């Protein structure tokens, strides 16, 4: 099978400072990959590079093939046909990722309309409205009538992230890029959103690039992980192997930190 996202020797730099160095990995259709590393290790940069949305001040070299199209150096018009179609992104901070002045129903309707038009179907108001409701159901948002007519600041953080996920799903992308989708949420909501993402990815069979600094979180939804440190991939493998037998010291500290955190929860909590 051909790769959906194929990154070869990706280097991202601002001025002389490398943010990501010689990164290579491949995601095939339906595959679920985790990209982990501490804050500032270049995870978001990699995700943005994959959709060709890095600011022009940031230089990208190497090769990124998304759904057969070379992304590096591609014209914006070419990329725009790929965005949403090949890949969609869910961001870390659901409040700032939604337009504060647009009602939630309309925000979800936007990508729905684009997809319907793209598929040559009828993008009638009814068809769009039906899809929006379907999506709201799918991401298990309560009180659909209220949510549709609410502004982002009028719903909770977890609900906002469900809206963002609904918007990504509306595109029916071949790969979903989730950039720390649960970091801004409390632990309970985090678990719910993870479960939802996991279930949706399995149902739709889309591929997943899941970005996080939290190894246990990643382990719940992906099969394989890549560990990033200072822009270098220092370890890669099936999630169980990396978790049980980390090679690199850095990965060991990540695993250790996660274990200690779990223990602390175990002794003080339930």
């Amino acid at each position, binding site marked *: 099978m051909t790769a959906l996202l194929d990154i070869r020797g990706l280097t991202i730099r601002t001025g002389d400072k490398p943010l990501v160095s010689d990164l290579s990995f491949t995601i095939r259709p339906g595959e679920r990959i985790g990209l982990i590393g501490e804050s500032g290790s270049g995870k978001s940069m990699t995700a943005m590079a994959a959709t060709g*949305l890095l600011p022009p001040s940031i230089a990208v070299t190497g090769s990124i093939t998304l759904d057969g199209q070379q992304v590096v150096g591609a014209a914006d018009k070419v990329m*725009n046909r790929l*965005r949403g179609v090949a890949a969609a992104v869910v961001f870390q901070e659901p409040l700032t*990722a939604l337009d504060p*002045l647009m009602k939630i129903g309309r925000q979800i309707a936007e*990508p729905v309309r684009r997809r319907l038009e793209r598929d040559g179907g009828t993008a009638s108001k009814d068809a769009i409205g039906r899809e929006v409701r379907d999506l709201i159901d799918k991401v298990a948002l309560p009180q659909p009538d209220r949510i549709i007519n609410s*502004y982002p600041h009028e719903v909770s953080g977890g609900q906002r992230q469900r809206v963002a996920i609904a918007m990504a799903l*509306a595109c029916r992308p071949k790969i979903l890029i989730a950039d720390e989708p649960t970091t801004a949420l409390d632990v309970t909501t985090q678990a719910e959103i993870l479960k939802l993402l996991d279930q949706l990815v399995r149902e739709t069979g889309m591929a997943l690039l899941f970005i996080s600094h939290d190894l246990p979180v990643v382990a719940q939804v992906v099969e394989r992980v890549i560990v990033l440190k200072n822009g270098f991939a220092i370890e890669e493998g099936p999630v169980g192997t990396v978790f049980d037998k980390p090679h690199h010291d850095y990965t060991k500290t990540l695993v250790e930190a996660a274990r200690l955190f779990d223990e602390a929860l175990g002794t003080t909590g339930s």
Partner: protein
Amino acid sequence: MSPVETSVSARKRRHSLALTVGLVLVGINLSVAVLTLFWTPYDPLNASGGRLEAPSLLHWLGTDRLGRDLLTQLMIGARTALLVGIGAIAIGAMIGVSLGVVAAFATRLADDVMAATLDILIAFPTLLLAMLVVAASDSASLWTAILALGLAISAIVARLTRILAKRVLRQDYIVASRTSGTSWVGVVFRHVLPNIWPTLSINFALQFGLAVIAEASLSYLGLGAPPPNASWGRLLQEAQGTVYTAPIGAIAPGLALVALVIGMNLLADGLRDIADPTRGRSR
């Protein structure tokens, strides 16, 4: 009721007060302006009483120094004020918003050039600009005044739009929208314009008031609407010499001007609160 719902209804109540007062003030002005197209108490061009008569039952606001009915002049002035304000804002908004949005997208160099040009244009006195427009069109009329004011406003609007649009373009939701395949044109119409509109509309209301006042200076210099088009500005200027003997001649157009400007600002404020639902919570 949840806290969210309470704040929403409190927000709606507050809108409605500013909006109502604004609508009433602007509405009165608009009705009077329309009315003058069909009827005025007296002939606006010819004397209908003695000079500088005090207010009476016949002439509610008295007469001016040519013996014309002041109320009639004032009513015609309402029409001129609306025409000047709306015309200048329409021109200023169309040119200014387009230029500002383009500048927000421009490359560094083009953007710097545009910003510098706008700064120079803004520093350029409106009066000089008006003289140029009049010179270019051979004669002064209400329309050359409106055009000159519109051009002056467009520079201010362009600069504001550029700054506001740049700020919106840096927001996360723009990137988020782009990742789902929204084109730049789509971004402008769906996200940038709606998000800068609340601030822009307030500025339009402010510029509206300034335009109406600026028209007065233009008229005074013979660069605005020539007589017989009565304007509040010219009424004010004409009343200057007699302000101690017949103060009503200055007070009446002054109050009318203030009422319209305040009304416009309240209206814009009310409309802004509707356009920006996030404001309701913080006040």
